[in-house]
């Protein structure tokens, strides 16, 4: 076991991937609690598809993927948020439109430029080889920004998540905090997307929050617990994918499913014992 870990971390690209992955998992788990409770889980999913489209276009234009993706995805996040708040248009339908739309654009752009090949597969399901040295630096900076913002605005995020109308009526600028959550989510998704894959990144947002909600009763413990669960699941996932030579993104998701079932079972047993 220890030997496997030593062997794993003798590869620089794996060290990079693990560092970026752990940071992204942490950010995603923290934001996920709020997104899941606000019934915004699908926004995360929609954004990752937008990210896929922009990644494809960035590659076609030979531009740096992150510098193109991040602003576009942030823009899409604001748009999706606006739509969800507007009762005239159904939010879930709009998310489906935007996400399938960008997926289609991405696939067409890729097939026009490089042809349908492993690139598409890598974008969709992620690749551990995707992290360059610059990506690591950028990831660390952005992750620090996300974490600091989250800690500083934790109380505001709780108030806005629990009851937006109350917060708004008592004079909190809820729009600003919704934007903040959308902004941080976009950055997290774009950062994690190439490793986890466009189709799988939203699991990092949704799973840890749902898992910890099985057992935890307080918002603070839910938040802390989902951060820890997310970090552990990511690490186990990477090790499994290294040992069994399975795709990283999918392995991490499988470990997350296992954790969810474990917590769910623990809660059921706890309920039985109490009776």
């Amino acid at each position, binding site marked *: 076991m220890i030997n496997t870990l030593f062997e794993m971390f003798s590869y620089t690209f794996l060290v990079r991937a693990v560092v970026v992955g752990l940071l992204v998992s942490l950010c995603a788990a923290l934001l996920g609690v709020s997104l899941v*409770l*606000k*019934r915004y889980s699908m926004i995360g999913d929609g954004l990752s598809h937008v990210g896929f489209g922009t990644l494809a276009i960035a590659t076609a234009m030979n531009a740096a993927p992150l510098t193109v993706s991040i602003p576009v995805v942030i823009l899409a996040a604001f748009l999706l948020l606006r739509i969800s708040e507007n*009762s*005239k248009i159904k939010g879930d339908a709009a998310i489906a439109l935007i996400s399938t739309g960008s997926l289609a654009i991405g696939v067409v752009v890729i097939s026009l430029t490089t042809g349908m090949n492993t690139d598409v597969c890598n974008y969709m399901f992620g690749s551990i080889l995707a992290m360059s040295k610059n990506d690591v630096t950028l990831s660390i900076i952005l992750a620090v920004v996300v974490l600091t913002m989250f*800690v*500083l*605005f*934790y*109380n*505001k995020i*709780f*108030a806005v998540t*629990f*009851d937006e*109308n*109350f*917060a*708004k*009526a*008592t*004079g*909190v600028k809820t729009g600003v905090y919704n934007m903040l959550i959308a902004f941080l989510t976009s950055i997290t998704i774009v950062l994690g997307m190439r490793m986890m894959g466009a189709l799988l990144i939203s699991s990092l947002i949704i799973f840890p929050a749902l898992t910890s*909600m099985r057992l*935890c*009763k*307080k*918002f*603070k413990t*839910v938040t802390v617990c989902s951060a820890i669960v997310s970090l552990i699941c990511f690490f186990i996932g990477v090790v499994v994918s290294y040992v069994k030579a399975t795709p990283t993104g999918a392995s991490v998701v499988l470990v997350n499913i296992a954790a969810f079932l474990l917590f769910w079972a623990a809660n059921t047993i706890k309920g039985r014992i109490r009776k």
Partner: protein
Amino acid sequence: MTLYICKDAALGYEGSVAVRSLNFEVRSGDYLCIAGENGSGKSTLLKGLLQLKTPVEGSIMLGVNADEIGYLPQQTAAQKDFPASAYEVVLSGRISSRGILPFYSRKDRLTANENIERLGIKPLRNRCYRELSGGQQQRVLLARALCAAKKILLLDEPAAGLDPVITKELYRLIENINHETGVTVIMVSHDINSAVKYASHILHLKTEQLFFGTTADYLNSPFGKMFAGGESND
């Protein structure tokens, strides 16, 4: 001091007007009950008073800042399974007094604990909000509203889904708050009998303003005789 002045105000949703010709004043220390049937525009008016909606016509003028308002909303489905302790929920009522500062102060925690004691929910302090009964949840939300209410407390159907005993207790609590602390209370309710029992002023709506005045005047008015008189027979 006048807290609200409504002048020929009308409020509505996306083009259609839900309630019109609103003309009333709320003064400091009043206990106003906004009464009316379902769909009469009560909740819409409350949203207007909370500035969550701007009037389509006329004006609603405020004599208070938003951070002096406490609000007890109707519960949403999302809240009913929210993983938070009662204390966390109550404390979040202090959010408006924080401004841009990130963390709660000692005074905020103290106020939260005081309001928890006041509503007799100390044993529930560390319980999970979603595991509480409807009445207990309502008290937690009222404690949160009190944390925010420096001058005025707005309540949207506080008795919705509660049994008669708990409803009576809740009304008594609200009355005490109004009397003891001088906090102005504006309550939306379709329960006209309790309204005339506790409130100092009545605003009766039916997509427009039918009556506004003191409770005594209301009981002598034709509307009062019709609504309050008619319902007490059953």
